[in-house]
């Protein structure tokens, strides 16, 4: 890929502007002092000196373009992506581009002016680029029209390039024409540029949000300080579904700094994603004092029936169910059962399981709310400031027009920011106390209360034809009650051309609410079907890579990935014992991603993942460098849950709620990752933020099989004995 001429030494800098609005871009002097963390609530306003050409951008007299980003920056590079998409159309030098977070209140009160502020599902670039690019294109055409009118020429004669408008001998800057452009109505909005006409998209652009993240000045919800603020530590029932019975505030009331204990009542019997659970909060003048008092305060819970639940019980029930036909069934390509039952057929069976996992964003969730007579101000853990605004309005009992949700960076979110009740907790506490309140969940509280990634069980059966390829296949998956459909992803819609294919799904009951977690469904299911495919291929005498190529004939996006894997991976099943390569391919969030893992396993069973190669087909890529960073991150994410991870559910609660028991990948465990692209460029766009994860676990497990002869049917893998003789 080409590199645009951006001096990487011209470090991006940042300023924390008055009011806490962070402006990111090139060459803005860095400021860094403790006061920066104290933000004064104030109405959003455009940066001084800038003219608003449309809701998405302002241009100042010096030609600096400030782009408003409706989406959350949680480490995925969304601020840079939006700025890049707008700048492509506007045609403005990258050094002149700034990014700020857009105002949720404006969006909500002006009829969803930014269309959609949600951030998730790897949607930002793949599904939102048309309207984001349109904002830039529409501004550019207004600038051209303004210049055309002034110069008395036709708009078609005016060129807009790199911040400069020209027509013959006439020349002017975007800054000079911004005010006039803002007044212009066009009879018809311009079309956005097609692939091939890009000058900035497709090029490596350094992320804009790096500078404040190397000197401690980046502000996350946990860092926000408002004058007069008090701190709350909260605890919901440790067994999800249970309720608070009683608490003895008198026992801790006299402790230093302690202000109050407040019960947070569960809002309804069946909780939605962001509804408030039964919980107790202790409020003090510092978080540590609140936390210690909460730890010491006697609390009684009505644990409810969830206290009988355990992973062992769910696992036993799921394995039992997989022997039985399920009501939820879909015959995708005709009924395979007669063929599976016919005598003499070679039937191959494989079953697999994944446990509960959690997001564990490095920042435990935090929220600040200030409910006053006039207005409500919120800084919170979220992936959608507009949705959070409506939640806060609902909890405060106020009109959305009086609610202001302020953008901050997020210290990781991974889907959890779409399904969390901490905003309601903070608003409720502030409303009751009449003061600004900061709520922080401890790591233990986060693991206990996050909407977890669900477990899955899956069993596959297929019968082989004379050529060793399957003629009929039955998939039977088991999901859980809160979101059973996660169990379907990648299994019900598997791409392999088996002539007869039926999918069934069972459900086991649980008390643990679940929610989205980086590539939900696919993140667990890839491990099941992509190992089974290897078993099936080997049973029929096929090379696993050749089997996949054969079984996806006619599927251009898969073929492109598989053929690229064949070209670059050096995949072979012929390595000496103790070494193995494994491949797997998963399609999720619109992208098809193949992984080749190389492992070594000592005779005594010590596993070392030597290399991960990732081949992505997302159709297009706008910023290869930032996309690679997401690939590396996705691999690390799934490496955590493949090798270690695994939440231990007993008596209705997780027992390993901190990093001493919930082990995640660290530097020493991280293999080299190579990211390669195999883009179809066929008009279809896939996502990048979560798609390299799902094929990683099965590729590693398949590699372990070739190294040891052992088929690993559940995670965490490091709990299995991998020794071989």
């Amino acid at each position, binding site marked *: 890929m080409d590199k645009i001429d951006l001096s990487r030494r011209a470090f991006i800098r940042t300023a924390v502007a008055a009011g806490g609005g962070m402006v990111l871009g090139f060459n803005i002097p860095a400021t860094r002092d403790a006061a920066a963390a104290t933000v004064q609530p104030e109405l959003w306003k455009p940066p001084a000196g800038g003219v608003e050409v449309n809701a998405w951008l302002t241009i100042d007299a010096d030609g600096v373009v400030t782009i408003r980003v409706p989406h959350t920056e949680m480490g995925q590079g969304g601020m840079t992506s939006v700025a890049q998409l707008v700048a492509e159309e506007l045609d403005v030098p990258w050094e002149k581009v700034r990014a700020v977070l857009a105002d949720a209140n404006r969006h909500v009160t002006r009829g969803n002016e930014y269309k959609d502020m949600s951030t998730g599902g790897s949607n930002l670039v793949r599904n939102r680029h048309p309207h984001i690019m349109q904002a830039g294109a529409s501004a550019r055409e207004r600038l051209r029209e303004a210049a055309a009118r002034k110069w008395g020429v036709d708009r078609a004669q005016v060129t807009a390039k790199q911040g400069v408008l020209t027509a013959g001998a006439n020349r002017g800057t975007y800054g000079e024409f911004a005010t006039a452009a803002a007044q212009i109505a066009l009879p018809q909005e311009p079309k956005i540029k097609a692939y091939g006409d890009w000058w900035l998209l497709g090029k490596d652009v350094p992320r804009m949000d790096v500078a404040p993240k190397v000197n401690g000045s980046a502000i996350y919800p946990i860092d926000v300080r408002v004058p007069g603020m008090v701190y709350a530590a909260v605890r919901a029932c440790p067994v999800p579904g249970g309720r608070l019975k009683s608490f003895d505030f008198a026992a801790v009331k006299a402790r*230093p700094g302690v202000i109050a204990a407040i019960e947070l009542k569960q809002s309804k019997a069946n909780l939605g994603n962001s509804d408030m659970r039964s919980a107790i909060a202790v409020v003090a003048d510092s978080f540590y004092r609140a936390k210690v008092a909460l730890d010491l305060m006697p609390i009684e819970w009505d644990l409810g029936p969830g206290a009988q639940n355990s992973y062992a019980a769910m696992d036993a029930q799921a394995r039992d169910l997989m022997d039985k036909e399920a009501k939820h069934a879909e015959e995708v390509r005709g009924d395979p059962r007669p063929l599976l039952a016919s005598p003499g057929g070679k039937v191959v069976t494989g079953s697999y399981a994944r446990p509960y996992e959690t997001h564990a964003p490095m920042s435990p969730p935090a929220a600040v709310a200030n409910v006053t007579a006039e207005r409500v101000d919120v800084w919170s853990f979220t992936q959608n400031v507009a949705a959070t605004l409506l939640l806060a309005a609902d909890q405060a009992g106020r009109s959305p027009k009086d609610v202001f949700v302020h953008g901050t960076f997020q210290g990781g979110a991974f889907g959890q920011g779409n399904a969390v009740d901490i905003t309601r907790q903070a608003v409720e506490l502030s409303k009751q106390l009449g003061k600004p309140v900061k709520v922080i969940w401890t790591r233990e509280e986060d693991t206990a209360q996050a909407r977890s990634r669900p477990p899955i069980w899956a069993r596959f059966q297929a019968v082989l034809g004379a050529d060793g390829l399957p003629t009929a296949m039955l998939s039977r998956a088991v999901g859980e009650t809160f979101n059973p459909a996660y169990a379907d992803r990648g299994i019900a819609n598997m791409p392999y051309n088996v002539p007869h294919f039926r999918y069934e799904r069972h459900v086991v009951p649980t008390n643990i609410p679940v929610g989205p977690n980086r590539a939900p469904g696919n993140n667990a299911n890839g491990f099941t079907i992509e190992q089974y495919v290897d078993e099936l291929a080997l049973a029929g005498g096929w090379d696993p890579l050749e089997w996949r190529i054969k079984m996806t004939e006619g599927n251009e996006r898969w073929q492109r990935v598989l053929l690229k894997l064949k070209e670059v991976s050096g995949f072979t099943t012929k390595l000496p014992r103790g070494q193995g390569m494994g491949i797997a391919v998963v399609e999720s969030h619109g992208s098809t991603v193949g992984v080749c893992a190389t492992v070594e396993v000592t005779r005594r069973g010590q596993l070392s993942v030597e290399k991960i190669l990732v081949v992505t087909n997302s159709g297009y890529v706008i910023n290869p460098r930032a996309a690679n960073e997401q690939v590396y991150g996705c691999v690390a994410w799934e490496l955590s849950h493949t090798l270690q991870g695994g939440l231990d559910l007993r008596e209705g609660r997780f027992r390993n709620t901190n990093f001493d028991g919930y082990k995640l990948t660290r530097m020493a465990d991280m293999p080299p990752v190579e990211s390669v692209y195999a883009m179809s460029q066929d008009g279809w766009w896939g996502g990048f933020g979560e798609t390299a994860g799902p094929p990683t676990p099965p590729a590693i497990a398949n590699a372990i099989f070739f190294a040891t002869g052992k088929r690993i049917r559940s995670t965490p893998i490091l709990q299995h004995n991998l020794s071989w003789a």
Partner: protein
Amino acid sequence: MNLTLSVNGTSHQVDVEPETPLLWVLRDTIGLTGTKYGCGIAQCGACMVHIDGQAVKSCNVNAAAAVGKRITTIEGLSPDSSHPVQKAWLEHTVPQCGYCQSGQIMSAAALLQRAPNPTDRQIDDAMSENLCRCGTYLQIREAIHAAAKLGRS
């Protein structure tokens, strides 16, 4: 109880219980929020600071034990992001969400202090004290090697 702490070359009088973890004194009492809370049990390294030049997890040190010591936080590592580790972090665009990066940078700076030209093995050992959920480990490794070069030049 009144304690005197020396942070980034400035003396701070703080009124806290002596057993309060240094992390919360830095964040809530002194207002230096660059040092982060991640686990509270010395597992994740988000709260890494330097005490008398050594990398220490500030959630695991009580305020009283830090009296009389020289405490450096990310805010005090350099006045203008010019420490070789910060420069390398910028150059290699290491952070994603960024939340763990103050701790990562403090660990890396302490590593380079004692091993100016670290091997991958030394990097693995030192940096495995710090968790990163975004998975920036590969960029961290590259950036530490780059910072070592910057430090030598």
